[in-house]
């Protein structure tokens, strides 16, 4: 879809050689995706609808499923904005400045990716659990963090922490600083520069970051499983609910809820496509909008 926004270079496909390459590459893509992604997804859907639509609807409208949906969405609604603010700030600092310890900072931001979800849950238990460092104090003040909603939010925050930042950093690094420097030297203030110059050129990356962060926040299982306490209808998120249903031999129910998660992910993608489409029509009407900061820059004329 970015390609559409950028204009597909179909002219390159004129000669036969590149046509072969084209078909081969698309073929490889589709084959790989089919084997590793599409077939398993179809398996999930197949199980979800195995007993018919009624059973499917009953599974996804049971009170326990609804409370799991609510918990998952509330968690995502808290986690995604926080990680977005962090991601934009971190990407700005890292891409627009050279400072000592930058690689260290980037690596620390990456760290949650490599922290096993199990560990991501465990660290909060070590901190806030009854045997943890802050446990006695929390207990004395009757505050529960682990095995309650705050613990689920914290674990999800940690696991999804780098997503937005990591999507933005390479794109912003690639674009360099000239455009922003020009805007500033022409008298624009920082916020104007950011909103008028930087943001338009990183919006797709930002959007991807938010979508990935959101998808991951809703799908997180391992870390949340450690801090949830598994109290039915209270601290079970959708992924945990899926596991519970699976363990009850309710395969249809389990995969129905899983398909609901896929649907939520697809919804965000559809929202993205719609926005992109809107952006595309706008762009056509105003052909001078820059592709990147290297060209004619709106911030400068502002």
């Amino acid at each position: 879809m970015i390609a559409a926004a950028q204009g597909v270079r179909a002219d390159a496909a004129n000669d036969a050689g590149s046509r072969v390459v084209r078909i081969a590459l698309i073929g490889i893509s589709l084959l790989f995706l089919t084997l590793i992604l599409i077939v398993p997804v179809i398996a999930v859907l197949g199980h979800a609808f195995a007993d018919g639509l009624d059973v499917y609807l009953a599974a996804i409208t049971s009170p326990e499923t609804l409370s799991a949906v609510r918990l998952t969405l509330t968690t995502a609604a808290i986690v995604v904005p926080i990680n977005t603010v962090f991601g934009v700030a971190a990407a700005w600092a890292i891409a627009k400045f050279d400072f000592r310890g930058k690689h260290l900072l980037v690596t620390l931001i990456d760290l949650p990716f490599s922290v096993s979800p199990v560990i991501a849950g465990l660290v909060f238990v070590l901190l806030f659990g009854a045997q943890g460092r802050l446990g006695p104090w929390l207990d004395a003040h009757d505050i529960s963090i682990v095995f309650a909603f705050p613990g689920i939010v914290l674990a999800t925050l940690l696991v999804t922490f780098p997503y937005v930042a990591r999507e933005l950093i390479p794109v912003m690094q690639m674009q360099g600083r000239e455009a922003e420097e020009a805007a500033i030297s022409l008298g624009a203030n920082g916020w104007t520069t950011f909103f008028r110059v930087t943001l338009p050129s990183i919006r797709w990356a930002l959007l991807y970051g938010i979508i990935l962060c959101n998808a991951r926040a809703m799908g997180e299982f391992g870390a949340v499983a450690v801090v949830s306490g598994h109290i039915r209808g209270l601290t079970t998120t959708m992924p945990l609910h899926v596991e519970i249903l699976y363990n009850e031999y309710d395969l249809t129910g389990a995969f129905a809820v899983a398909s609901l998660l896929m649907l939520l992910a697809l919804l965000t993608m559809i929202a993205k496509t719609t926005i992109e489409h809107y952006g595309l029509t706008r762009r056509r009407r105003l052909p001078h909008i820059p592709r990147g900061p290297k060209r004619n820059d709106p911030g400068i004329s502002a």
Partner: protein
Amino acid sequence: MRKHFRIPMPALAASALLAALTLAAGCGGDSSASGSRVRLLNVSYDPTRELYQEFNAAFAAHWKAQTGQDIIVQQSHAGSGSQARAVIDGLDADVVTLALAYDIDAIHKNSRRLQANWQSRLPHRSAPYTSTIVFLVREGNPKRIRDWDDLVRPDVEVITPNPKTSGGARWNYLAAWGYALDRELGSLDRLYDAAPEELERAERAARDFVARLYRNVPVLDRGARASTNTFMQRRIGDVLVAWENEALLALEEMGEGAADIVVPSISILAEPSVAVVDTVVDRRGTRAVAEAYLRFLYTPEGQDIVARHHFRPRDPEVAERYRDRYPTLELFTIDEVFGGWAKAQAKHFDDGGVFDRIYAEASQ
């Protein structure tokens, strides 16, 4: 220029979408949090979901009739060990109903949230129902599996969960070990009077037997339910070593014809244990109802629910009623053969224990 600044829109749209869905989902959630009700949290393990769902309703009616008080029992189910860990780390369970006494002992040892004497406070060492280890085989028993000896045949694939992560799997392992000792010594009674050399030889034979059994295991799932699914859904393996209640439930859920149960000649008496978590009930003021809840498990009504959900009841009258469902076989306890959980755990399942060494040797 302001007009093509659109970036917050996806964020806004996403937030709005999420908010709308949250509200929509919120309408369907539970809104029963009224003040006068008593809440009880029962932290249990995987196979007891269906049992406690029914039991909780029965107890709520019983308690309402006795005291006029409404009660809601919340349930939490996962692997027995991780549930014990959650209670140690602060999950406020009023009562725990776990797979093995070892896990409840662990709560005492690691957190002091319940007293050391928990096992003596209720009858039958605080285990109101029992089960045992049986085999689930493919329909018609094509590999003709009759007893433990068939499990070490080279042509048989055995499915059992990982004893390091699954409490249930430890019973499987110990049942096999006990069988081998019994076969070697002629009778488990001889554990107490046999000569030391003879005991040592029997121990070696048991170790060899268990090692051969695990050589036939292609998948070590994390928990009992995962193993059942591997066997039933993915149709891996020839025999599933399972708790009797799990085997009966699996047949009930997936149709009688899906597999057959084979009862071995001798097996272990599995005693899932229950306890009140002292510090929690004292702080929340729920001791009376929590104790009544566990005692209700021992009443004829409670025992009948237990028996209906595939566990063996302790009450002789109820047991008599369900005699057909639970065949008699020779059962030994963990105390008789292994000297209790603490010893069995240290010798067999701790890091560097017999189970680890079996795998370490196999990989050399």
